[in-house]
Structures are given as C-alpha cells and as structure tokens.
C-alpha cells in the first residue's frame, strides 16, 4: 500500500493538480491556524483574568469597622466602631489555630515632595505581614520590617510607578521624600501584578502613622490571613468566630449587620475559579467549533475532488486499476496533503502566537499560547477526519462501474 512507486504516482498527481492541492491544503492549514489562534487567545484571556483576580493571597479575611444600626447593652445605635492596636493582639492570642499572618492598614492621601516637585499619592500604613497578603514583589531594597514597626522609623517602601514619577532615572534608594512636615527615607521599591493602581502606592510602618497622628492607636482595617489547609469550611468557621469575638468585644448586637464587616476572599476565589472554568469551557467550545468547521470544509473539498476525478478514475479502471488501488490513491494523496498543510498551519499559528506575546495585553489577551498536546491532537483530529471524509467518496468512486465513470463529463 505504501510502495515507493505509489508515492511517486501520488507526488506526480499532487504536483500536476496544483489548484486541488492548494484548495484542500489551504483549508486544513487555515483550520488549524484559526484553531491555534483562537485557542491561544482564549488562553490569553484566561491569563489576564488570572492576573487580575488571582494574584492576591486567596486565604484572607478583611475586617472593616462600621456604624451600628441597633442599640445594644446601653449603647445607642449609630455608634461608630473603631479598631485599635489591642485588637491585633487579641486576634493573635485567641486565634493561633487559624492564624497565619495579620496586618493593620491605615489609608491616607498625602502630598509627596522631592526637590520641589509635589504629587498626591495613596499611603498605606501597614505591618510587615502586608507584603504576603498583597503579594507585593520587592524589586529593590526591602519592605517595611519589624524593626521599623518597633522603632517607629521614618522609612518607606514605594511603588515602581511612584519611583518612576518622582525620581525619573535617578536611583530612589536611600533618598528622602517629604511627607507633610517630615522627611522619609526610601528603603525599597516594589512592583505588583495587580496593575498600575497598586504600583502608585507608598507603604509606611503603621506605628509611625499613629505617631504622626497624635500618637493614637487607631487602625482603619485589619487583614488576617489564615492557614491554607483550613480549606473553604475552615475559612467560614474562622470568619464566624472572628465576627462573634469582635461583636462581643466591641459590644455590638450579634444581629447587627452594619457594626462590623468581614470580607472573606475564599468566596470570591471560588467565584473567580468558577468564572475561569467557564472561560475554559468557552475556549474549548470555540476550539472544537473551529475544528468541526475545518473538518466539514475538508470533507466538502474531498467530495468535490473525487467528483471532479470521476472520469479519470474510470479511465484508470479501464486500464486495470482495482478498487483498492483507487481508494488508496485518493486517501494517500489526501492524507499527505492534509498532514503537510496541517503541520504548516500548526507552525504558522504557533509562530504567530509567540510573536504576539503580550502585544494584545490592552485587549486582555496576555501571553496567548496553546500547549503542544492540544495543538497536536487538534492537528491529528483534522487529518484523521479529513481521511475519513476522503474515504467515503473514494469508496463510492471505487465502486462505480467503469462504464458509468467513463461517461462522466
């Protein structure tokens, strides 16, 4: 079935029927190419999605103080709840089983000045554990550390874009920036995958902030990360116990929904993961759709090709071609063309994707790629179904009486 002679005959036929060869080759190459591109884009979408939503720590609880809506144990309603340093210590002492990290956060907007230039930035006063929670990546120097907290130093860690704005090409490390009345020393520069907003921030020791604000001990928010192995159920339990604890400590009616807010990221993570898998399904759907379209395309062409060759097949039969050799000829030819052009389309597609890289990031397509297994399976499927699609008309053509085939015009 695969003698050298037969291949020579096939090559000859392919070479001398360029239109036919180009037509079917083009269909297959295009099918694979579009599949690779679409599938790659789908994966690119998934990449940007994951970067947007999944880059913060996924095992955190966020506590915000609120304003009570119910009177309780002698307190009137409409009472503003506040967090303070003792709350941090209480959590550390009472929830060791759950706790991984804890950090307060105090947000302010302030003017930063350097060499006469001023600009307003968001400043976050935090503890060292904040780095873990926000997955902040240090590019230079260091993050706020425990010594900064203990000694209430005037050290800051600034975002990549802050450094760019203020220092341009200058090295920001060790330079002093004025915030309000005092000068702060830059001890580190960070980046954050969550986007530009996160990189226009300045981190400050929270104890320093409290010192700046009349040496109080107030805290805006508390972020708590819990041990990953607790899982979803453990996280819910932790959230419940923490809520109960704070409500009793701050004397809030247990049924009051507005005195204290707790945001649990696990729920959001679950949603995001569900969204991601929906995206995955859509991507797969688009991919399979493209493949099916390709298969239908190549099937049509095979039907057309065989029909066009009916007379030739009749002549070959009159000269002594048996049915098997007819089928083998058509199949070998089509498999040869589809394999070659399939691989061609595959390579072009992969090449295009790798060239695109992150050029389409503004369209939320980041690092589009197709894993090689998917690409190979898709190519194989197209070739395989192309062969089957060729087999059916080839078989039919082989069984036409030669006299009928010869009459074909």
């Amino acid at each position, binding site marked *: 079935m695969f003698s050298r*002679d037969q291949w020579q005959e096939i090559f000859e036929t392919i070479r001398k029927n360029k239109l036919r060869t180009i037509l079917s080759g083009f269909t297959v190459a295009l099918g694979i190419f579009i599949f690779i591109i679409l599938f790659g884009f789908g994966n690119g979408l998934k990449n940007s999605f994951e970067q947007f939503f999944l880059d913060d720590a996924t095992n955190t609880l966020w506590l915000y103080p609120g304003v009570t809506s119910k009177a309780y144990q002698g307190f009137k309603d409409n009472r503003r709840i506040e967090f303070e340093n003792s709350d941090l210590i209480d959590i550390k002492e009472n929830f060791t089983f759950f706790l991984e990290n804890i950090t307060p956060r105090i947000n302010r907007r302030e003017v930063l000045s350097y060499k006469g230039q001023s600009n307003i930035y968001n400043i976050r006063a935090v503890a060292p554990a904040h780095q873990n929670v926000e997955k902040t990546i240090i590019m230079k120097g260091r993050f706020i550390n425990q010594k900064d907290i203990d000694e209430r130093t005037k050290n800051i860690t600034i975002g990549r874009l802050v450094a760019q704005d203020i220092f341009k090409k200058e090295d920001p490390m060790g330079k002093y920036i004025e915030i309000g009345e005092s000068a702060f020393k830059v001890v580190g520069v960070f980046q954050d995958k969550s986007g530009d907003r996160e990189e226009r921030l300045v981190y400050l020791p929270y104890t320093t902030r409290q010192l700046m604000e009349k040496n109080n001990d107030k805290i805006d928010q508390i972020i708590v990360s819990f041990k990953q192995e607790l899982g979803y159920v453990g996280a819910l339990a932790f959230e419940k116990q923490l809520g109960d604890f704070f409500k009793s400590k701050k004397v809030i009616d247990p049924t009051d929904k507005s005195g204290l807010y707790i945001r649990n990221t696990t729920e959001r993570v679950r949603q995001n993961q569900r969204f991601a898998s929906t995206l995955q399904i859509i991507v797969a759907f688009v991919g399979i759709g493209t493949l099916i379209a390709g298969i239908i395309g190549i099937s049509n062409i095979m039907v057309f090709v065989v029909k066009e060759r009916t007379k030739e097949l009749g002549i070959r039969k009159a*000269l002594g071609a*048996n049915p098997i050799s007819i089928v083998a000829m058509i199949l070998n030819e089509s498999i040869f063309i589809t394999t070659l052009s399939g691989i061609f389309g595959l390579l072009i597609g992969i090449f295009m994707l790798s060239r695109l890289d992150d050029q389409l990031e503004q369209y939320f397509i980041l690092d589009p790629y197709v894993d090689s297994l998917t690409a190979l399976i898709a190519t194989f499927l197209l070739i395989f179904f192309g062969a089957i699609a060729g087999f059916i008309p080839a078989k039919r053509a082989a069984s036409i009486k030669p006299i009928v085939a010869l009459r074909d015009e």
Partner: protein
Amino acid sequence: MIQISNLHKSYKMGSNSLHVLKGINFKIDEGELVAIMGSSGSGKSTLLNILGMLDIADEGNYLLDNVLIKDLTETIAANYRNRFLGFVFQSFNLINYKNALENVALPLYYQGLRRKTRQQKALEYLKKVGLLDWAKHLPSELSGGQKQRVAIARAMASEPKVLLADEPTGALDSNTSREVMSLIQKINDEGKTILVVTHEIDIAKMCKRIITLKDGVIIEDKKTDQILL
C-alpha cells in the same frame, strides 16, 4: 479468442426497460480484424463495453481466451482488463494532466512493473506510433490524430490479447482516420486480435471481417476484401 453466445442486455430507466442486445452470437479467432457496423443506437458500444468488461451482460456466455467471464469481482475484472484487454475510445480518454509518455505507462503501473521498465516500454510503443518526439507533451498539446495514436500506444503497451476500439476514428478527419487505421492494420499484422466499432463503411472495409448489428441482433457477418493502407 472471443466466443459469445446468446448475449442479452437491457437498460432499465425507471419503470421502462430498453432491450438493446437481443441474443448475440459470434466467435472471433486470434489474429482477426473485425469491424462492428450498425446505425446509431443499434447497440455497438454496448456490445463492445461488455466484451471489454466495462459493463456486464444480463444473459449469455462470454469466453475470452477460453476463460469464462462471469460474476467476476471488480478486483478480478480490473486484473483481466489490465492483462487481456486494450481500449481505444472515440474521445481518446487520455488523462489530461499526464503527458503522452505517462499516459502510455499507466497500464504498466497497474501491471506492477518497475518504473524503469515502464518508461522503456512506453517509449518503445510511442516510437511504434511515431510519436517519440511528443513523449513529453500533454494531451492538450496534441492533435486529435496524435491523441488517438497515444491512446493506441497505451492500449498496446500492456500487451493485451485483444484490442477493442470504439469508433477510434469518430473524432478524426478522413486523412487522420486513414493514418490511425493504418496503424491498426499494422498492429493486426503483428498478430493482435482487434475489434473496431464504426458506422462508416469505408473504415469497416479496412478490416477483414464485418459484423453488422441492427436493433440488437446481428443481421450480417461476412469476410471482406481488406483495403490495405
């Protein structure tokens, strides 16, 4: 060489059936050159196609070189066509994307001969029909007479027992017709058995025997004085 008896063939078209061959009997010996005559629609092509195993009779016996041709699978029929029969058609039936040489070599490919041998043989037969210089030309670059000579070379290349020609001069002018018939006579002189379908008496007279069909039966079967070209 060929022996047929009581051959019947009808074409079914919907509920109608057209009885085309109504009991044909004849015997053709090795080395004969037979013309099959008859008006249009008398069943000449039908008969020749059955003899060539391109079509199947409804009834009757057909012996080719003492082999009974009946109920053959398509694979065996293909094999017999390849080894025993050579065809020449009115419309040449050359493969248009193959050049003269490749067309002539094609039946040899189906005989399983090696490429070298095929080329040699094909060239030899092209030379025989006087077209050695045209070996690399496509059919579209050849005249009608040249195409028919290529077709004859192709039919002869597989060295068949019988050459079947259905109106080989039907598409040619009288001069080219004579050239082609001269070639057929030459091949016959070398001992090949040949059947030529024609409705021109001039062509028929260049053969050695004329069988005349009318309405599906033989009305005349006689030897003739061959006009040698």
